[in-house]
């Protein structure tokens, strides 16, 4: 905690000096946007220096050897640790906390929307809450699985001792708390009311909270880009001997594909926000109707934000495929086709952005090409479904909590994908765009596809990470509860959207009351399910029974080491000798450890029974 405290002190000092500097030089007020920008930038630098940057980087700049946290136990989670496992847990805990805060904001909205008219908040506050909710949840979906499990699992799955750039990895994580503080602090400057999409010109003229949104999201972009870079280099250069691309576990493949995408497109959101910021404080006119152009923002924004939906869901594909093979006890069906599908999704997803703009007033001749390309993505997505079906086929399914949640995922993502076709079709989208139908669609894909994967992954790797087993009964109840409540919440919203209810509204015509009331009650039940989730995990992390190295009889490397893995993951360099999913092949093994032949033998007994 000492370093966090030092970081906070330096951050506050930084903020105040930034503000003071602009006040003195420029003569503006202390809440002027220029002052906020200067304050934020210096606060960020102060924070990074304070939490450990001084030792990890600064010492090197003056010719001394750098130092990072060597602590063990609880302390290391609050320090500048470069262990990818510690960083994975830091991401996981931070983002699940953000998920819960975002969830609370959803509860407020659903309570407001339970009946027409205004009750607990007013119209403007509603827009601000909806904007906050949107961006918090988008951040969780973008970074959740890849930040927590990508960091924790990928290096072990490829047989590496850590990430390629461990200090950079820590730096990326420590940029995350400022993002949360920036966003959650925005209400002090009037909050932001332009939605998570922050379309200009509204985002140029609204309250100053928008400036904090811009700064925080640019910072978040940096987290994404640095994290992605690290995963790409790690997977390319740090694979164990014998870990060919054709033997790479599918979760690692998915993380790799995600990182390719995140590394390539994230800067566009930042670019759009830089332009907005300049329009606000530097007197430029990128989005002014007289000089600039009204559609520019949407194009830049969606050039990132469509791929972003795949940044959210590709790691989810990886998790679910990994779980399905493990619990079906069968090889992953059509592994190579799945890899090809992941990579073609990466390619296609950067050329479909304008399907968010069918009603934007862009030239009509653009509708056709973007419709064709969008429909084309359903083909590789179909391959993922084929692989899941083929893997389940004639399997010996072991219905533990991870698989139950994975089944919830399968159902939800199916609905998300099918409703996506309605939105990709220009004729139907003209009616459905910006209605509750879209809201329901992207909750089915994002909550259904990314958050459910985060939940499933949490149960699956919980015994590895904590060394203890969660409570199975509570887990199963949660899995079923969360799936049913989620569907009860969002199915009625498809109806509301088709029938004329637009999105991002605190009030609506009385005709939509029934569907909204139903959704609100279901949403509260959905929210309550998370008490069981958090309760189960907190209790089990401390009191759960010991899990042993491989409770699922899985074959990938992380299950061949103790739970939790030792500091450098492996006691000797593993050698990869076979495919990770060769279930059902007598005597096959994925990896062995030359120095511990008996240990490898023992594993082999276990996995091939």
């Amino acid at each position, binding site marked *: 905690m000492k370093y966090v405290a030092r970081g906070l002190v330096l951050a506050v000092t930084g903020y105040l000096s930034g503000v003071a500097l602009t006040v003195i030089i420029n003569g503006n007020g202390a809440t002027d946007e220029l002052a906020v920008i200067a304050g934020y930038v210096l606060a960020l630098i102060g924070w990074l220096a304070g939490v450990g940057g001084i030792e990890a980087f600064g010492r090197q700049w003056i010719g001394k050897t750098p130092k990072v946290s060597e602590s063990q136990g609880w302390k290391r989670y609050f320090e500048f640790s470069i262990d990818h496992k510690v960083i994975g847990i830091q991401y996981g805990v931070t983002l699940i906390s953000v998920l819960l805060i975002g969830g609370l904001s959803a509860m407020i909205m659903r309570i407001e929307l339970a009946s027409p008219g205004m009750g607990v908040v007013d*119209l403007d506050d*509603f*827009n601000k809450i909806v904007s906050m909710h949107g961006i918090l949840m988008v951040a969780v979906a973008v970074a959740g699985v890849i930040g927590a499990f990508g960091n924790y699992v990928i290096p072990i799955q490829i047989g590496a001792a850590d990430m390629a750039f461990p200090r950079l990895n820590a730096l990326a994580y420590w940029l995350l708390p400022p993002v949360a503080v920036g966003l959650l602090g925005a209400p002090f400057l009037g909050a932001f*009311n332009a*939605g998570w999409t922050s379309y200009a*010109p*509204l985002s140029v003229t609204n309250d100053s909270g928008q400036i904090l949104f811009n700064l925080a999201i640019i910072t978040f972009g940096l987290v994404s880009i640095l994290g992605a870079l690290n995963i790409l280099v790690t997977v390319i250069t740090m694979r164990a001997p014998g870990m060919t691309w054709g033997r790479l576990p599918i979760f690692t493949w998915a993380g790799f594909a995600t990182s390719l995408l995140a590394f390539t497109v994230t800067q566009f959101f930042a670019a759009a926000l830089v332009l907005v910021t300049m329009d606000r404080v530097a007197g430029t006119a990128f989005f002014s*109707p007289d000089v600039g*152009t*009204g*559609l520019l923002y949407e194009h830049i924004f969606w050039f990132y934000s469509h791929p972003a939906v795949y940044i959210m869901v590709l790691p989810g594909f990886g998790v679910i495929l990994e779980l399905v093979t493990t619990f*079906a*006890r*069968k*090889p992953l*069906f059509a*592994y190579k086709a799945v890899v090809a599908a992941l990579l073609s999704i990466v390619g296609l997803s950067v050329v479909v952005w304008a399907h968010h703009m069918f*009603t*934007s*007033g862009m030239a009509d001749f653009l*509708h056709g090409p973007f*419709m064709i390309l969008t*429909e084309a993505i*359903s*083909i590789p997505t*179909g*391959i993922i*479904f084929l692989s899941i*079906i*083929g893997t*389940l*086929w*004639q*399997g*010996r*399914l*072991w*219905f533990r909590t991870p698989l139950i949640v994975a089944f919830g995922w*399968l*159902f939800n993502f*199916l609905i998300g994908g*099918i409703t996506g076709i*309605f939105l990709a*079709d*220009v*004729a139907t989208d*003209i*009616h459905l765009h*910006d209605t509750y139908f879209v809201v329901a669609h992207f909750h089915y894909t994002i909550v259904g596809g990314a958050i459910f994967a985060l939940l499933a992954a949490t149960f699956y790797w919980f015994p590895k990470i904590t060394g203890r087993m969660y409570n199975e009964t509570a887990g199963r109840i949660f899995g079923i509860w969360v799936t049913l409540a989620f569907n009860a919440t969002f199915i009625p919203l498809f109806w509301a959207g*088709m*029938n*004329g209810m*637009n999105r*991002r*509204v605190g*009030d*609506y*015509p009385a005709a939509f009351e029934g569907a909204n009331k139903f959704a609100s009650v279901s949403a509260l039940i959905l929210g309550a399910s998370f008490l069981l989730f958090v309760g189960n995990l907190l209790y089990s992390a401390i009191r759960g029974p010991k899990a042993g190295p491989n409770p699922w009889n899985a074959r990938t490397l992380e299950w061949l080491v103790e739970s939790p893995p030792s500091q450098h993951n492996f006691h000797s360099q593993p050698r990869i000798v076979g495919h990770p999913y060769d279930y*059902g*092949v007598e005597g096959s093994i994925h990896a062995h450890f030359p120095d511990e032949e008996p240990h490898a033998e023992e594993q082999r007994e276990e996995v091939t029974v």
Partner: protein
Amino acid sequence: MRKSWIPVGILWLSYSVLMMFAVANFSWLPAEWSEEAHVVDSAMLLLQYLGAPVMALVLAVMTWSVIGWRDKGATRQDGENIHGHRGIVTGWLIITSLLAIYVVINPGFVGLAEIRGEPSSDHVITLHGQQFAWSVEYENGATALDELVVPADARVRYDVMSADVLHSFWIPAFRIKIDAVPGLTTQAYATATREGSMNDDVNLRIQCAELCGPGHARMALPVRVVSEQEFLTYIDNLKAGG
């Protein structure tokens, strides 16, 4: 391997039939008040019919997973070593591609042509969006702030503009929508098919569909569809009165 095809096939067929029956009998679509609404609704219906067997297939597999493929005796044994099957993967690719191509053509391009093709119109009405109200300007220069009056059985072109931020002009009963973009004039077409007003259907309203600020939710204007004769009289009177 063989024996699962039969139960899964039966489940698939039954789910498909059930879902198609549901689509045919329980429409979720609101009332249609324009020719465009009919085009959109037909497309929506077609996509539901096409989606049913796709959804049914996955549901069938999920159902049989629980019934047929559960590891009942908790044997913890491995399943069969099936890595893939070239024929199945190729077949699947061909079928999904054909389905995607079909959907792009119909309702895709067919609907697109019907809704946004043919730029001709009998009347032009201009809508000015502004935080947080719509104002209507008719072809004779008359303006109104209290309602939009539209002739039935005539193709109307809506020219949409904004004075400040993005708004979106949406009449749910007509299923048409186009954003109001500062600095641009955007266009949408609709042919109303019967007379009525917001008292008959809440969807006979212009609703702003693009988040535009605090008053966004209530940025709506009633729409009244009247005969073409009445329409002409209405705008003449409006002009004389204003």
